[in-house]
C-alpha cells in the first residue's frame, strides 16, 4: 500500500516527493447508525504544488504518455479506491 502519511511541506524541491493522498479522522458519535468510517481520504494531486511548469522536465516515452494521459511524470498521479478491502 501507498504511504498515506500527512505531509504538508510546501517545498518546491520537495514537489516530486509529495504524497497525493491525505487523510483525516472524522468524529465518531456514540450512536452513529452506520458503521463508522474511521479514516477519510482525499486526493491532493501534483497540480496543487507544481506552480508554472518549469521547462525541461522529464518526459514519458510517447506511447507510454498516450496510455497514462500525460507526457509528464511530474503530473502523473494514478488513483485507486482507498476504501477497497483487498
Amino acid at each position, binding site marked *: 500500500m501507498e504511504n498515506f502519511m500527512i505531509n504538508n511541506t510546501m517545498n518546491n524541491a520537495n514537489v516530486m516527493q509529495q504524497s497525493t493522498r491525505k487523510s483525516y479522522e472524522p468524529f465518531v458519535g456514540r450512536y452513529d447508525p452506520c458503521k463508522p468510517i474511521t479514516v477519510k481520504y482525499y*486526493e491532493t*494531486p*501534483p*497540480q496543487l504544488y*507544481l*506552480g*508554472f*511548469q*518549469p*521547462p525541461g522536465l522529464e518526459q514519458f516515452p510517447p506511447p507510454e504518455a*498516450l*496510455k*497514462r*494521459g*500525460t507526457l*509528464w511524470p511530474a*503530473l*502523473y*498521479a*494514478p*488513483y*485507486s*479506491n482507498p*476504501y*477497497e478491502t483487498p
Partner: protein
Amino acid sequence: MWIYEKKLQYPVRVSTCNPMLARFLIEQYGGADGELSAALRYLNQRYSIPDKVIGLLTDIGTEEFAHLEMIATMVYKLTKDATPEQMKEAGLGDHYANHDNALFYHDAAGNPWTASYIQAKGDPIADLYEDIAAEEKARATYQWIINMSDDPFLNEGLSFLREREIVHSQRFREAVELIKDANSQKKIF
C-alpha cells in the same frame, strides 16, 4: 472550424453489460461537472478572455468533446443490448420509458442538462477560477465512479480521463499566472 478524426482519444473497452454503471457514468455526460458542460463553457468563455489564453481554452474545450465521445461510447456499450427488464433493475426504467436505450444529456439523477451549469462572467480571473474548479470537480466525479466500478477495462478509460483533468487544471492554473503577469518581463527559470 474543426477537423474530425474518426477514432477515440483513448480506446474504450467494457467487460460486462452493466446498465447500473451506465446510469452513474451519465453524470459525466450531461451532469453539471460533465464533459458537455466543460466543452461548452471553455469554447464560449474564450471570446472574452485575454488573447494569450484563448488558444488554451480552444484546445481544452476541443479535447472535452473528445472526452464526451469516450463517455458516450462507454454508456452505449454498457447498455447496448440491455433488455427493458435489465434497464428497470438498474433504475433506468424512467429513462427507458422516455428514451429506449438512447443516450440523453442528463445527470445520474435524471436532471436534464441546463446552460445554468456554466458561466461566462467576462472577468478573466473569475472565469479561469471557475474552470479550475470545474476540472477538480470532474476529477472528483471520476474518483467516485471508479470507487463504484468493478469493471477493470472501463476503469482504464476512466483513469485516463481523470489524469486529463489533472493536466487541464495545471494548464488553467498556469493561465492565471500568465494573465497576472501580463505586463511584467518573461519569467526566467
